């Protein structure tokens, strides 16, 4: 029973965080600097999610040849910058990863 209450609490909290600004929109007047931050949310938040996946191996910063995900990720960044194609980027990234893991 306790477990269900815990799940409901965590679900409610998670929903509250996601609903917060969506609910408040139109009911408050944010300061101008706040609006200036928003265009950077997608790039900043998604890069923050991605960078540790490429640079850290089990919490350790590994920049050398024994971190194939870093190099495959750099290939993907290069492909994404040149062709701006999602499937091509993912395909090349996976190909690079598998190739590097076979080396």
């Amino acid at each position, binding site marked *: 029973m306790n477990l269900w209450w815990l799940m409901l609490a*965590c679900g409610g909290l998670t929903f509250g*965080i996601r609903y*917060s600004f969506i609910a408040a929109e139109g009911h408050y007047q944010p300061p101008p600097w706040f609006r200036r931050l928003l265009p950077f*949310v997608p790039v900043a938040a998604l890069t923050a999610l991605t960078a540790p996946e490429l640079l850290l191996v089990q919490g350790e910063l590994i920049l050398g040849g024994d971190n194939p995900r870093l190099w495959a990720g750099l290939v993907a960044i290069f492909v994404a910058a040149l062709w701006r*194609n999602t499937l091509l980027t993912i395909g090349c990234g996976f190909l690079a990863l598998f190739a590097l893991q076979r080396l």
Partner: protein
Amino acid sequence: MNRLQAFSLGLRSVMPLLLGVAPFGVIYGVVALQSGIPPLAAMAMSSIVFAGSAQFLLAQLVGAGAPLLLTAGAVGLVNLRHALYSASVAPVLAHLPRRWKLLLAYLLTDEAYAAAIPHLLAAAPPSRSSAGHWILFGSGFGLWAGWQVATLAGVLIGAQLPSNLGLDFALPLTFIAIVVPMVDSRALFAAALVAGAAAVALAALPYKVGLFIAALAGLVVGAALTRTAK
């Protein structure tokens, strides 16, 4: 773009992310059962909480017998970054009736947001007739359905499923495919650089708080640079 087109655009955009999310869902199902959570509750958690890393944490803390308040607090911290997504999409959803806002807030995950946001920003300015929010509904629904199926597979079939194929790499790759084309100014580049470096530097902080701080740092640097450029 009509509703169906917008919905299927969102659905298609989230598909590559499902490739990476599915293994996580399976592992979550396995971890939840190992933590002593009954199958029905493990499944229900994927609907009630519906947040990948928070569910892992929740399962582990339940397994360890952590107190309720600490567990809820930790889950809140892990999901703090979703407030940024909420602020980011709020202006686009402002004109919608409350039931839409409730539904889209419930579906607002990393992946649903990432898949929809380039299209949301590119779509015509929101109005009563526009269907832009159906893109977010499509990506959110796609991820939700995939997460439920993956959890179910983890709960039912469990450890027999191969979960170490490297498919989780689809997540960073798709985020790269989404972010790189969006970086078209010096300020955005600096924001990405700062957020990425800070996320790596702060990765050891508990409950993913480092992610949230890193994203904030990126926002501030980006906004500061736009200001000086003008």
